[in-house]
C-alpha cells in the first residue's frame, strides 16, 4: 500500500475526506513557496501537489497561468520541483503537463522524484493511450499515477482510465479550467458516482473549489477535496511573507474543518 493509499484509509476511519493543496513550484520564489507549503500543512492540508510550471498550461485558468509564467521566469525547472517536493513534510505529488517530464526523461524523472521523497504524479494531458512508458516507469518505483477524468468522460472510458490510476482518481468538478468558482455544478457528484461504479480507488474532486462551504459539500461524497488557485491567489495578493502564510494557514484551517463529515 502506498503512503497516499494509507492516508485515504486513515481518513476513512476518521470519517473525513482528505484535503489536498496545490502550489506551483517556485512561486512566488523558491523560499516563499516552501514556507507557504509549510503553512498550508500547518493549517491542516493532508497531501501536497507541487505544480511543474509549464509554458502552455491549457488546463489552467489565469491564476495558475500567471504563477507558472512567473516561476518559469524565475528559472524553475525539474531540479527546483524536486527541491520543493523534498521540503514537504506530508505525502507529496507532482502535477505536470507531459512535455517537461518527457524532456527530462521519463525514467530519470521517476527516479529523481522518488529520491526527493515524491509519492506520485498527476498528469492532466497524458492520455492512457500514450502512457505505456509512463506506466512501467512509475510502477517499477511504486509512484502513484493519477489521471484526471471529466464530466464528459464516458462510462467505458472511465473504467479504462481509472484501471490505470493508483493513489486516487482526480475528478474534474466541471467542464473547464482551474480557478475559483462561486458555485459548483452538480456534475461533480454524478461523476464521482460513476467513478465509484468502476473502481475502488479513492476519488478526489478538484477545479473551482475555493472555500469551506464548497469543500464540505464535496466531502460528503468524495474521498478528497483539491484546492489550488485559491491558495495561489492569496499568495499572489499578499506581498508580505508572514501575512501571506498566515492567510494560507487560515484558509487551510477552514477547509480542513470543512472536510470532516
Amino acid at each position, binding site marked *: 500500500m502506498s503512503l497516499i493509499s494509507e492516508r485515504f484509509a486513515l481518513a476513512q476511519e476518521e470519517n473525513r475526506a482528505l484535503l489536498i493543496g496545490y502550489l506551483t513550484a517556485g512561486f512566488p520564489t523558491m523560499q516563499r513557496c516552501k514556507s507557504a507549503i509549510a503553512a498550508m500543512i500547518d493549517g491542516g492540508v493532508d497531501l501536497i501537489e507541487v505544480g511543474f510550471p509549464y509554458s502552455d498550461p491549457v488546463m489552467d485558468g489565469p491564476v495558475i497561468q500567471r504563477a507558472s509564467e512567473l516561476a518559469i521566469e524565475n528559472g524553475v525547472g525539474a531540479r527546483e520541483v524536486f527541491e520543493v517536493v523534498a521540503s514537504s513534510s506530508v505525502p507529496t505529488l507532482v502535477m505536470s503537463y507531459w512535455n517537461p517530464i518527457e524532456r527530462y526523461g521519463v525514467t530519470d524523472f521517476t527516479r529523481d522524484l522518488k529520491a526527493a521523497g515524491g509519492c506520485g504524479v498527476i498528469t492532466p*494531458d497524458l492520455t492512457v493511450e500514450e502512457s505505456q512508458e509512463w506506466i512501467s516507469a512509475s510502477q517499477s518505483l511504486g509512484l502513484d499515477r493519477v489521471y484526471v477524468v471529466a464530466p*464528459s468522460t464516458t462510462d467505458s472510458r472511465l473504467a479504462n482510465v481509472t484501471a490505470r490510476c493508483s493513489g486516487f482518481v482526480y475528478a474534474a468538478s466541471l467542464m473547464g479550467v482551474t480557478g475559483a468558482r462561486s458555485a459548483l455544478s452538480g456534475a461533480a457528484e454524478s461523476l464521482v458516482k460513476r467513478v465509484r461504479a468502476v473502481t475502488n480507488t479513492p476519488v478526489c474532486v478538484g477545479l473551482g473549489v475555493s472555500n469551506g462551504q464548497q469543500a464540505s459539500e464535496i466531502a460528503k461524497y468524495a474521498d478528497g477535496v483539491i484546492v489550488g488557485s485559491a491558495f495561489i491567489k492569496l499568495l499572489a495578493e499578499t506581498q508580505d511573507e508572514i501575512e501571506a502564510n498566515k492567510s494560507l494557514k487560515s484558509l487551510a484551517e477552514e477547509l480542513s474543518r470543512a472536510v470532516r463529515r
Partner: protein
Amino acid sequence: MTTELIGHFGKFGGRFVPEALITALDELAKAHREAQQDPSFQLELMELHRTYTGRPSIITEAKRFSEHAGGARIFLKREDLNHTGSHKINNVLGQALLTKRMGKRRIIAETGAGQHGVASATAAALLGLECVVYMGEEDTKRQALNVARMKLLGAEVIPVTTGSRTLKDAINEAMRDWVTNVESTHYLLGTVAGPDPFPTMVRDFHRIIGDESRMQMMELTGRLPDAVLACVGGGSNAIGIFYAFLEDKEVRLIGLEAGGDGLDSGRHAATLVGGSPGVLHGTRTYVLQDENGQTRESHSISAGLDYPGVGPEHAYLYETGRAEYRAVTDKEAMTAFALLSKTEGIIPAIETAHALAGAIEIGKEMGPRANLLINLSGRGDKDVQTAAKYFGIPLE
C-alpha cells in the same frame, strides 16, 4: 481496443489532451470518417469549392521568375486565387460543414496573421454559425485590418493577453474555451497540428491541392514534377500538396521553414531543422523548446509561419526522409517576395515567399531540365504594409 495507438504517424501524433476533450475528439473523428464515406457530404463540399472557393485553382508557369532559378521550369499552384486569398478556405469549409453535421452551432478558431481567422469567419457567415476567433494581442495590433475584416464578417475577436501573446497562446486560449464549451462548440483548428483527428482531417481537406496539381502537371508537361515545394509553419498547405505525391518516390518533396534571422541566431521558427521531438498542443511532434521542456518563442517576419510546433506528419516525413526540409531566412524570403512581384505580377504572401526562395535555390541545384511545382499558398495583400516597411516604401 481503446488502448491501441490512434492517429499516429510513426512515433509522432496521438493525443495529449485533458480527458475532458476525448469524447469530443472521438465524436469529431467519427463524424469525419463518416463524412469521408458519405457521397452527399463530398458533393456538398465540392459544390461549395466550385461555386464559392473558385476551385479548381489554376497553375501558372512562372517563366520570367525561372530565369532567376537556374532556368528550371517553375509551376505555381494558385491557391492565392481562392476566395479569402489562401489555401485556408479548403479546410475551413470542410470543418464548418462537419460542425453542422455534428449539430453544433458555434465555432472557435485561433489565428496568427488573421488568414485562418478571416477564413473561419467567412465560413461561419456562409453557413450561419456563431464564430469566436482568438488572436494574440500583439497580432491584433499588427494585423488590425484583418481584425476589422473578421468583425465585418460577424465574428467576435478576442485578444489573448497571456504568455507571449501570439499564435501559440491563441491556441492555448481556444483550447481552454473548447474544454469549457465542448458540447456546443467545435474548435476549427487551422493547421495539421493538434490532437488526433486534426492532423489527418485537416490534411484530408487540403489534399485537393495535390490531387488537382498532379493531374494538371500531367496535362501540362506529360509527367510528374521533379520536386514539389511548399512553405511550412504548421504545415497545412505543404501536406495538402505533398500528399498526392507521397507514393511517387521519384518526386522530391521539399518543405521550407521560416529561418527568421538565421538558424544560428536562435531567432527563427524552423521547428524541424532547428527543434527537437516533444509534445505541444496535444500532439507529439518537433518543437522549439528549452532544456526544461518549455516552449521557446519563435521568430519570423511571416506571422503565418511564426509557430514553435509543426504538424506530426511532417515530423514523420522528416525522420523517414521522404520529405526534405530547409530553413529560409527573412531576408531570402523577402528577396523572393520582391522578385515574384516584379517578374510575374503576382504579390505572394510572405509565408509563400519562403517556398519561392526555396525554388530559387533548388532550381539552381537541379538545373534547367527540372520541373518544380510550388504551392503558391496565399496572396500578399495582407502583407503590403510589412513589405512596404521592409523595403522602405513610404505609405503616406
